[in-house]
């Protein structure tokens, strides 16, 4: 504060300290000393000619020290350079100047001083120095600083990122908005300050908002509102606004302040959660899952509607259902187990999962249910709730029963099948075999399972099996092949194998193969035998035809009497046929010589005792038997036509014997007409003398003795094995 009224000052240059005080200025001195603020007077050389009492008090020194005190030493370091510079500038300007800064009092405390220095002039107007006064502005300065700090804090708060701040006047026009509010609302500050809060509020929310806004101003009650702003780009933003009315000290409202939080995400989350809960509820219902809650005190609780449906009960309007309602529907055989499980849960909170049968209340139908129950602890007060879910598992149960039955059937087939069942992995390792296969190969199960099928067959057969697998892996389907395997005692068995790949039910990957095999060793042997038999039959037929051809050729060659030739041919065929009959009866095994002869003569029998057969029972090979039969037929035919049997009294003796390894046979006719040597030798003679001889590798001779024809045979004992 300048004191221009003290313009007079002595022009003397007294020494500091001992300079007499200006006596003519006692009154000024008195006044100056009584002033509560430091006052000082300087000369042109900047030395002080006067300081007042307050000045001394501030410095804490005596008068002489104060006159020469270097005031620069007590300036706060942060202010010093500035103040010194301003001081020099101020003095040089010869104008009144003000300095402000912190100075240290004599007691050590820092004080804000605001000093005003004013030039002093003498009577002639010459500048002679300065007079200064300093006000202690510490309190004001601190208050200002505190205010500035608070403002900075408020500003920081207002502009901080999470919350938006918007101030409007009572009509709703924006008067102040922070950056965050602009970001949330989607409008620039400039746009907002030209708008009202009503203009950016979603029309559907405005009515309620306006009502609350008006009431807040009228009744001075703050409110919280969740509403939508329409952003400048047309997008919707959900906000939670906390709104308060601004009032002057007089209580008169002048504006409204809203703290705005963007809750779009939260709303979306809530919406998603609601949707999710709804989805779960729907899913639970769609899955046929019925839920229940139980209050232990009343032993009843709330059931979902479909829980009533599940049990075939009427739906209770409030969804109330009791444990007993439920247990009453449970099949009597299952009821105790169900009760025990449920009450176990009620008693010690152990969760349960049970499957049991019920009888529906409405239809009486038996159904299978699965129920899960567990306890939910509600904090310390031990108010426990029990919740559960039940669903109908009848279909699954029946499928399981069906599966078990099917497995049992399969097991039975597997165990009892005569066919061999075997499964292998893709490396030909045996994974399972049935008892029939073990029996066939003569191994125990643990000797087979885990080993390669290649261990039980020759290398070429294993190669064939591998090839079959390779083909199935490429083409799929079933392969059927015949393979030779080795039993434990080294026998070779022929198996016919049908196999196909097995695959995983879930993903369809090939896991191995299973095969059904059948022993065709016997069948193969039989087949080979059949083939042999057929070949043999063919051979015999061909041979027989050749014989017939030979007989026909011989019979008809030179014969002029066709009727007689035909009769002869028929007789020979009949003899051949008879021999075949016998051989067939005996399965083409060796036949009795007596039998062959008696069959051959039988058609020519003509009565009791005409033929006398006498000889040991020798076995003849089939081929030999035919030749003998044909030869005997020729002899008998001749006997009937020309010999002993052409008359009633004649007879034929056929006698044979063995002499060591020789067969001797004699055909002797007696009682017939006198024998004459035939004029020509026909088939008969040739057949007997050459055919039979060749057959027997012996000699056959016909003797035309006058008393009766005689035929002798001498040959090795025929080999029946031929």
């Amino acid at each position, binding site marked *: 504060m300048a004191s221009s009224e003290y313009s007079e000052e002595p022009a003397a240059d007294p020494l500091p300290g001992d300079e007499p005080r200006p006596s003519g200025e006692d009154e000024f001195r008195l006044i100056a000393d009584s002033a509560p603020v430091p006052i000082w007077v300087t000369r042109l050389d900047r030395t002080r000619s006067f300081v007042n009492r307050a000045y001394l008090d501030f410095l804490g020194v005596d008068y002489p020290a104060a006159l020469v005190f270097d005031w620069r030493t007590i300036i706060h370091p942060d202010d010093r350079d500035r103040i010194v510079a301003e001081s020099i500038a101020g003095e040089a300007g010869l104008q009144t100047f003000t300095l402000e800064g912190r100075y240290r009092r004599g007691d050590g405390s820092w004080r804000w001083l605001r000093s005003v220095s004013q030039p002093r002039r003498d009577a002639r107007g010459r500048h002679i120095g300065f007079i200064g006064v300093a006000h202690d502005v510490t309190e004001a300065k601190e208050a200002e600083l505190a205010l500035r700090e608070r403002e900075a804090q408020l500003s920081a708060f207002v502009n901080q990122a999470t919350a938006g701040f918007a101030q409007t006047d009572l009509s709703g026009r924006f008067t102040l908005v922070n950056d965050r509010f602009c970001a949330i609302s989607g409008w620039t500050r400039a746009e907002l300050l030209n708008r009202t809060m009503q203009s950016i509020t979603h029309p559907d929310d405005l009515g309620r908002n306006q009502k609350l806004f008006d009431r807040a101003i009228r009744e001075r009650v703050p409110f919280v509102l969740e509403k939508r702003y329409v952003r400048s780009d047309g997008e919707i933003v959900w906000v939670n606004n906390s709104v308060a009315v601004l009032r002057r000290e007089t209580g008169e409202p002048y504006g409204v302040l809203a703290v705005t939080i963007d809750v779009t995400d939260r709303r979306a989350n809530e919406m998603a959660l609601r949707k999710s809960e709804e989805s779960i509820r729907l899913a639970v219902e769609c899955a046929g899952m019925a839920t229940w809650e139980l209050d232990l005190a009343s032993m009843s609780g709330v059931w979902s509607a479909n829980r009533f449906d599940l049990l075939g009960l009427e739906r209770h309007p409030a969804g109330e259902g009791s444990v007993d309602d439920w247990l009453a529907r449970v099949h009597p055989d299952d009821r105790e187990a169900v009760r025990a499980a449920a009450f176990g849960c009620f008693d010690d909170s152990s969760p349960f999962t049970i499957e049991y049968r019920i009888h529906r209340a409405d239809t009486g139908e038996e159904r299978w249910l699965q129920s899960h129950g567990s306890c939910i602890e509600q904090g310390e007060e031990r108010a426990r709730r029990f919740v559960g879910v039940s669903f109908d598992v009848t279909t699954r149960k029946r499928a399981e029963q069906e599966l078990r039955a099917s497995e049992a059937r399969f097991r039975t087939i597997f165990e009892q099948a005569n066919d061999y069942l075997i499964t292998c992995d893709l490396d030909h390792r045996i994974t399972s075999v049935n008892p029939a296969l073990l029996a066939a190969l003569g191994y125990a199960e643990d000797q087979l399972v885990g080993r390669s099928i290649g261990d039980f067959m020759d290398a070429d057969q294993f190669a064939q099996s591998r090839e079959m697998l390779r083909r199935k892996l490429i083409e799929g389907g079933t392969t059927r092949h015949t393979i030779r395997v080795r039993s434990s005692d080294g026998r070779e068995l022929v198996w016919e194998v049908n196999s196909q790949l097995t695959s995983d039910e879930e993903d369809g990957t090939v896991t191995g193969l299973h095969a059904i095999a059948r022993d065709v060793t016997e069948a193969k042997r039989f087949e080979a035998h059949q083939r042999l038999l057929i070949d043999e039959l063919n*051979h015999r037929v*061909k041979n027989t035809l*050749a014989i017939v051809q030979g007989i026909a050729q011989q019979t008809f060659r030179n014969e002029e009497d066709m009727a007689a030739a035909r009769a002869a041919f028929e007789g020979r065929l009949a003899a051949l046929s008879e021999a075949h009959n016998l051989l067939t009866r005996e399965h083409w095994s060796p036949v009795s010589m007596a039998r062959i002869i008696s069959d051959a003569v039988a058609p020519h029998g003509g009565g009791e005792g005409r033929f006398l057969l006498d000889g040991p029972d020798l076995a003849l090979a089939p*081929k030999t038997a035919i030749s003998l039969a044909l030869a005997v037929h020729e002899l008998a035919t001749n006997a009937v036509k020309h010999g002993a049997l052409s008359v009633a009294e004649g007879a034929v003796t056929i006698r044979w014997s063995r002499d060591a390894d020789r067969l001797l046979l004699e055909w002797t006719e007696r009682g017939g007409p006198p024998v004459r040597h035939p004029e020509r030798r026909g088939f008969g003679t040739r*057949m007997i003398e*050459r055919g039979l001889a060749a*057959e027997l590798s012996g000699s056959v001779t016909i003797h035309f003795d006058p008393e009766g024809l005689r035929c002798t045979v001498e040959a090795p004992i025929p080999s029946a094995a*031929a």
Partner: protein
Amino acid sequence: MSRLAGIRVLIVEDEPVVAMCLEDMLMALGCSVIGPAGRLAEGLALARDAQADAAVLDINLAGERSDTIAAALRARGIPFVFASGYGNAPAGFEEGVPLLGKPYREADLAAALERVLA
């Protein structure tokens, strides 16, 4: 007269009636017949010694294969024809030798013999 006239043919056939038939056929063709031999030993002896120009050889002689006789004939350069009641040639049947099926036809017999003698 057939081209086979005067040819000496050995017959090895174990069925007497068939052998006789064959004999008659060959004679009708103007051949002279050696045998017939009905057993392996007999056939083998003739195959080794007889002055035959050709032979008709039954493959199966009372259950025995006549391969040794065939070998003996081949050793002497005597051409031959196989005869068999089997429909087709048995295993080990020699290539290039005609097979005469039973029952025989004279024409087939003549053709087969002409072929081996050619």
